[in-house]
């Protein structure tokens, strides 16, 4: 690409804490990631519009007080909404991982089927009642409209959350999500297999998410969020079973490469 590597903004601050590994994952995928603190956007020292993708990594923004991602969502709405809206309108990739996913959902821009920015889905306390750090497998949804899942066989990565149970407002909305291809990843069996309409059950679905849903996108397919942490399964040595020769990094790498590729279209 003539312009060089696409610039990826990785947000930091107020308790977000996965910015380092997320930036590394994007750089590995050919992006030019920069960690930007919220204050830098607020003071316009850094300009969101100069980036080709906006990533909200995992963490505990504001301690998950009140509800995971909620306070950060409000902070974006009240303090940097103009930049954010512009970014959304430009249809540049916006990606939320874990706490970032919770934030996007609560901000109302994901999935935004109604088009009015109202919150339609949520992520609540795990059915187990516990925070869990556990490796799981994700299968991409074949009919998903999200370009970030293209060409991925499966992703193996850890989940590390206490509030990751995906719930939609009602059955109709859930149906619509599926119909319109907004469901992007579901929890699967260890080898990436899953049967349609059959939950893989706990602990493969680590939080009791409805329909095993782990990641979704918005109507444009450009805004995306997921609970697991693919940025922690980029290198073989990060994988728990690497000593048995089992380290599936391909899926996670492809995921970040897809986003970088989409960002490069900017």
């Amino acid at each position: 690409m003539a312009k060089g590597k696409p610039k990826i903004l990785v947000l930091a601050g107020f308790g977000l804490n996965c910015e380092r590994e997320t930036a590394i994952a994007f750089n590995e995928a050919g992006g030019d990631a920069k960690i930007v603190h919220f204050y830098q956007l607020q003071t316009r020292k850094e300009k969101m519009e100069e980036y080709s993708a906006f990533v909200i990594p995992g963490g505990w923004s504001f301690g998950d007080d009140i509800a995971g991602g909620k306070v950060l969502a409000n902070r974006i709405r009240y303090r940097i909404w103009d930049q954010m809206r512009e970014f959304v309108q430009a249809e540049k990739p916006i990606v939320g991982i874990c706490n970032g996913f919770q934030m996007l959902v609560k901000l109302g821009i994901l999935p935004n089927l109604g088009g009015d920015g109202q919150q339609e889905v949520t992520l609540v306390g795990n059915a187990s009642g516990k925070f869990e750090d556990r490796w799981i497998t994700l299968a991409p949804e074949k009919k998903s409209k999200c370009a970030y899942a293209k060409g991925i066989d499966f992703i193996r990565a850890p989940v590390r959350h206490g509030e990751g149970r995906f719930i939609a407002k009602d059955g109709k909305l859930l149906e619509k999500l599926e119909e319109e291809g907004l469901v992007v990843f579901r929890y699967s069996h260890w080898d990436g297999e899953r049967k349609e309409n059959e939950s893989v059950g706990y602990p493969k679905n680590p939080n009791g998410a409805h329909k095993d849903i782990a990641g979704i996108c918005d109507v444009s397919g450009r805004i995306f969020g997921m609970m697991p942490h693919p940025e922690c399964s980029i290198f073989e040595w990060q994988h728990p079973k690497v000593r048995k020769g089992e380290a599936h990094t391909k899926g996670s790498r492809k995921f970040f490469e897809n986003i970088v590729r989409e960002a490069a279209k900017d």
Partner: protein
Amino acid sequence: MVSRIEVALKTGVDDPTGSSVKRRILEDLKINSVSSVRTACAYTIEANLSEEEVKKVAQEIFTDAVTSHVSINAPCISEGFEFAVEVGFKPGVTDNVGGTAKEAIEDCLGKKISGGVYTSRIYFLHGKVKWEDVERIAREMLANELIERWNIMGSQGYAKAIAQIPKVHLAQNVQVQNISLELDDGKLIALSKSRLLALSLEEMKKIRTHFAEEKMRREREKQGLAGMPTDAELEMLAQTWSEHCKHKIFNAQIEYEENGKKETINSLFKTYVVATTKKAGKGKDWLLSVFSDNAGIIKFNNEWNLAIKVETHNTPSALDPYGGALTGILGVNRDVMGAGMGAKPIFNTDVLCFAPFEYAGMVPPKLLHPKRTLEGVRRGIERGGNASGIPTINGAVVFEPRFLGKPLVYCGTCGIMPAKINGKETHKKLAKKGDRIFMVGGRVGKDGIHGATFSSVGLDEASPTSAVQLGDAIVQKKAMDFLLEARDKGMYNAITDDGAGGLASSVGEMCQDTGGCVMHLERCPLKYPGLAPWEILVSESQERMTVAVPKEKAGEFAALAALYEVEATDLGEFTDSGYFVAKYKGKPVTMLEMEFLHKGVPQMKLEAKWEERWKEKESEHKMPQLGEALVRLLGRPNICSKEYIVRQYDHEVMGMSVLKPLCGEKNDGPSDAGIIAPVEGSEEGVAISNGICPRYSDVDAYWMAANAIDEAVRNLVASGVDVESIAGLDNFCWCDPIYTKENPDGKYRLAQLVRANRALFEVCTEYGIPLISGKDSMKNDYKHGNIAISIPPTLLFSAIGKVKDRKKTVSSDFKEEGDVVYVLGKTYNECAKSEYFEEYEIKGGRVPKVNAKENLKLYKCLAGAIEKGIVRSAHDCSDGGLGVAIAECCIGGRVGVRVDLEKVPCESNLADDRILFSESSGRFVVSVKEKDCAKFEKEMKGCEIGKIGNVRKDEAFEVKETGEQGAIYTKVSVLVSAWQKTMKW
């Protein structure tokens, strides 16, 4: 005006919190009348807000459109329950969520609000529950009365309940008192006691003499100070001279007697701890800063340094397990952030000691049931690490009945920093004359004043609770993010954390760099008005760091803090006056001579007498069926799977994880050490492990310590660390070792301490392991009426080591069918206090001895074999011995094994139960590919090793006996279930 917003889940949405409360009511309290529990949150806002504003806030901040139901100034639930229990904080207790909610409300309304936001939780209990049972549920499970208040309401009462605000009201007439020490001995001691100074008579007299000196009088007069200490001065001296800060016992002169032989030990610290590092650290240029800073600092490579510290937070955790553990974690994180120019925490490690959680006896007054303590501490660690984004990568849990009296909560953190910043070495720091004293982070309240005092007597709604502190991970995370940027921009000359002793300690220590300071206490931001100057000076409110900022950078520093939304306050300046001066509204309240403050404390003189108390003769017993014994041992609390705990800690955040605490085929086997790769692109890793075996101190504290060290070292070696690269941290938790009439066993306990220190020196120097940091907590005793419980003397030895190539690390699980299983190291009949003897209530026996010279040879050979890449799995033998170690390798790998006890290297005529369950030190279970056996044996030449069998594909677990006791033949699934069921909560 007060508004109250209640948030509940919509009907039909499951409530996992409620369900787990219900389960715990049944399991832990054995109350079976509660048929369901629903939960809600209440936010009480103290501000003048219009109806619209409250609505907007309720809608935008507290509502989740999908799941929640919100009510304003009205109950959120009106039916389906018999009792509502509301639990909120007592006045003055940090309300983290309340603080965040306030920020969010201000964001939402675009204006500051004057009052506070107070949170509480409401539990709606459904079922035919008795009032007394609800009271028990509230007291023993939902609330901790030290920090929380609760209100039990029937459904009618709840509908009419009025919001209460736990606001702190203090008298506003703040005064400084002069305190005369011209008193007789009895009154001096009484004064020390009544003000909770913990100063001895000798120390009180020394202070009296100092203030009575003519020169001192004249100097003080000039400043308008009386010829006697002010309350602030006395408090500050008490802090600075406290056992906690000065380690008086470790620095004492000890008259030691052993077998009739007497000797004088002038400071255990110098004689054993410092001496170890002197001897073992020779030629180790990677030791950068030891014993002098908040944490030990070592070189990781030419570009990066590591800072590491392990601390205890026992007493606070005994009283409020959650808050105690949380502040422990955040506190040790700050130690690392305050080491050198400041290191960024990269992992936590926690070691916990509790009484057995199935304890069914009476819980003495003021103590908590061990399961409650465990659960609270676990939650505190979860919160402290997870919310700060620091992985908890290794730890241990020990169960022993005497920890009922005081649980031990060891919190450790390692941080990383560039070796140089702007051309300056980061392991050094120095405040300069004229530098501004900045306090960064949280505000000051009565929290933790007299941290050692925990009587909650006299606390009422109007007085804040000073005993227990609650940390706020996010306030601290913000401060750390800010400080790292300030560090990299060269905005400060020195940094330290505000921990025990508050500003008195942090500024008091830092101003030794220049020789004095002037501080203006009224500038200190307070949580609520009405604190006396001495309280501001010694408050231990959390999340604070003290920073020396050059005058010309002060503006820039403060401006950057504001961007990070962190409070940074200029409290004064560093001087070379020779005095620690603190003023309040212009008037001096302390003027303490630096020399006296730091070097004036008189050396303690103590007596120690060792006596052999252990009887080796074994009580009568019959050898159990070995298969059954193995299954029973696997289920013992000290051995069983700790997955329940480990999984709730984020052990991978930061993406550096190389060897996780859980490993194997199903990611649930036990790992020996935690390893991370902290530098992007580098192959190098850092490994951490812990050794702890308090039960051996009943035999001999020397071997207790020696075994703890060996265990930590073994764990690292098994994972792929060369002993050459290991540094150690020693953490002593003891029962009161000072002999008095009330403490008749003091001399023996001090002798135990002496012997443990000798072991520390002898074993570490043999291994060549320098000590880089340590800590002691000497009074872990409980006394109430005639109930007295003292903990067993306990040394936690933490070992940190370097891995050259992260690809060459080894996990404990067996890998593949056909792999050959070896036992390394010799087994002796050493079962005293072993898990085996404890399970079968066998008394006596010999304690495991550590032959460091022999072990070292073996460790080096094993490191060589691992380096060559031919070791497929390695696991150290500790609790439960060889039998348990082999079982764990199988559990991790979900594979079977066939081994022959005949092949195990051991002392002659050793019975099978001893071969299997003796806890001799220096041993491993290793597996190697068949084709690599010759190579492996060559590497291990000259060591005691035994080729004992093979890994098999099916799940048969087969042990061939040497004699007639009967072999073990079982299935791995049986072992898995035995190992996992104990703590499957």
